[in-house]
């Protein structure tokens, strides 16, 4: 199945449909057809794929789409983006919502929630640097500085490791970065009270709420 020349409207509609159908093959075909038809890749990306992803997020919040479907939908969008990127002048950082550094705090190896949040932030339009698990505080600071991050997110499952999130706040201040970044804390051990106590800017109860709050924080 190949597409003939598409109009912008057709490309946008098919892009949204491919994401919501979690069909990676279709998503890539739409992306290729976009380029072959000489359409503006940025428009199809933003009004098509990104819109599709946003709708997927809403469906997930309403429990009409499951977590695996949403994550695979994100993969569809990333696959389409990989094709469209070849035609974009350069990675348009100015169009990114912001740069995020995210990781599981030192001493802690639980990372599934953090990984889901990272994926959702990426498909929502952030540039995400996921440092993985057991990440030293100094590493968060180093990468945040290097990448000019707007948001630094840390995850902790355990009461003992969450105090690392407090040390991260201090380290960001000492590095002179605290005024230019927003901090976000998550993980089972974290609560709004904890975020307030350590001075973190953002806390959210769920992955999709995290994306919403992240957008508000960097706006």
């Amino acid at each position, binding site marked *: 199945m190949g597409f003939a020349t598409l109009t912008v409207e057709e490309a946008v509609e098919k892009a949204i449909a491919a994401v919501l159908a979690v069909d990676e093959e279709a998503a890539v075909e739409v992306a290729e057809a976009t380029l072959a038809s000489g359409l503006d890749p940025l428009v199809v990306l933003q009004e098509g794929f990104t819109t599709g992803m946003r709708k997927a997020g809403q469906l997930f919040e309403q429990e009409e789409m*499951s977590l695996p479907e949403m994550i695979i939908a994100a993969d569809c969008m990333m696959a389409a983006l990989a094709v469209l990127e070849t035609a974009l002048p350069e990675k348009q950082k100015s169009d990114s919502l912001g740069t995020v550094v995210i990781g599981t705090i030192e001493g802690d190896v639980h990372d599934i929630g953090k990984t889901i949040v990272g994926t959702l932030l990426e498909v929502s339009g952030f540039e995400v640097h996921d440092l993985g698990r057991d990440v030293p505080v100094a590493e968060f600071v180093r990468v945040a500085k290097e990448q000019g991050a707007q948001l630094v997110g840390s995850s902790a499952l355990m009461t003992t490791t969450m105090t690392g999130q407090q040390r991260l706040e201090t380290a960001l201040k000492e590095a002179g970065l605290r005024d230019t970044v927003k901090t976000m804390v998550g993980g089972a051990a974290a*609560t709004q*009270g904890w975020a307030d106590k350590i001075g973190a800017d953002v806390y959210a109860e*769920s992955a999709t709420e995290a994306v919403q709050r992240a957008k508000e924080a960097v706006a």
Partner: protein
Amino acid sequence: MKRGPSAAREENRGWGLKSYSRDQLEAIHEATLEVLRLTGVEFHSEEALDVLEAGGCIVDRGRRVVRFPAYVVEGAIATAPRQILLAARDPRHDFLLGGRRIGFTNFGCGIKILRPETDELLESTKEDVGIAARLCDATENVDICATALVARDMPDSSYDLHMLEQMFLNTSKHVTHVDVSGGTNARRMFEMAALIAGGKDELRERPLMSILTCPTSPLMIHESVCEIVMEGARWGIPVLVLSMVMAGATGPVTLSGALVTHNAEVLAGITLAQLTCPGAPSIYGSSTTILDMSCGNAPLGAPEEGMICAAAGGLAQMYGLPSWTSGAWADSKVEDAQSGHEKTISAILPALAGVNMMYGMGVLESGMTFSPAQLMIDNEIVAMVKRVVEGSVVNDDVMGVDVIHRVGSGKNFLKEKHTLQYVAGEQAKVHLFDRRTRGAWEKRGATTAAERGGELAVRLLDTHTPLPLDPGIHEDMRAIITEAEEAGGLSAGAHTGTTRRW
């Protein structure tokens, strides 16, 4: 009338459930051996890698991955004891773990307490750890006492030691520590317990405490977990290696697939214990469950979770290992219809499968909250679950056919000696659940089970005094804690002083 004895009549003592067949359990075991041999498990400890390599495992030092030949795993299963004594400060509370005998306890490492007196939801402190322990000490169907809450107001270097201090002060039942920070503090804990036991050898003979430690799924064992397993093995302290695979997230989404990942992790941990010290008391543990694909959380009150626990029990029995799974758990945030259902379904499935210890009493919010009122309700639920497992006896005296003849038609059995003789064994004692007519219930205040549970918890806490701990021993314990703080520092703790009106 004479009735002669019956020959070769099969009896069921205790009721149970059929989950996987023996062949299916063997298939899971074979799949597990394949995973352990071909993919292996990551161990983040050089010392553990040394022990495993010396024991015959294939170790990739660069990736810290250990692959297990089948004979090493099956050898470890063989050297682990079938039954374990969980000793108590008061020997009347000693508990024998093994076979298909069931027991229940509370959980674990909650961070909030729902105070029944004030309906406040508070972040847990060291004092709360003691309150929970004292309540568990007073509660009949809590067979052993686990730490219920984390002392979030204590320093990182010693919070787990403060928790143990509260446990030994407030209960004379066997103590299980669910939140041990690592090998160094595990050792300090064992030293604290040895003070009570009267020495290291005495503690090995009568382990007054046990500890729980968790692999990280999939297929990874963190450094602190390695240390805890090895230290426990050396001291002869029962170590519960308990995995919590989230099916669909950190293991296959299928129940049987999740069990394979789970089984590989637990057997890997137990193999480390047995290679460190053959014959070390090792307990096979599971809180493996599904990842709810709508909300992205891992529900421990889900029926699938109960099924997995039952199957884990089956695996442990096949191996001849004592088993310990979640049971009487709830994801509900309040004491309501959801929590009632979750507690029961998560308890009755592993109980009927003969799991040796089920933890979860007192839990709300998937383990994050400890509720004294819920603990009272769970006490009753557990009594009823135990009654189901006990089953029903069929013999001439019990059936009482002679009594049926004598009473005949139209009369009743209320004042029969037979009724008096058997009533206590046949019916679970139910105090909190109200089975009266509506009018009678209204006359007594028209209360909910949660309200009655709260009142009972408050009453127990007001009146119950645990067996006192010798002050000299207590002082020596505090010295161990002080030494830990001098070595590791006095950080402020994570407590935020948050309170919420419920």
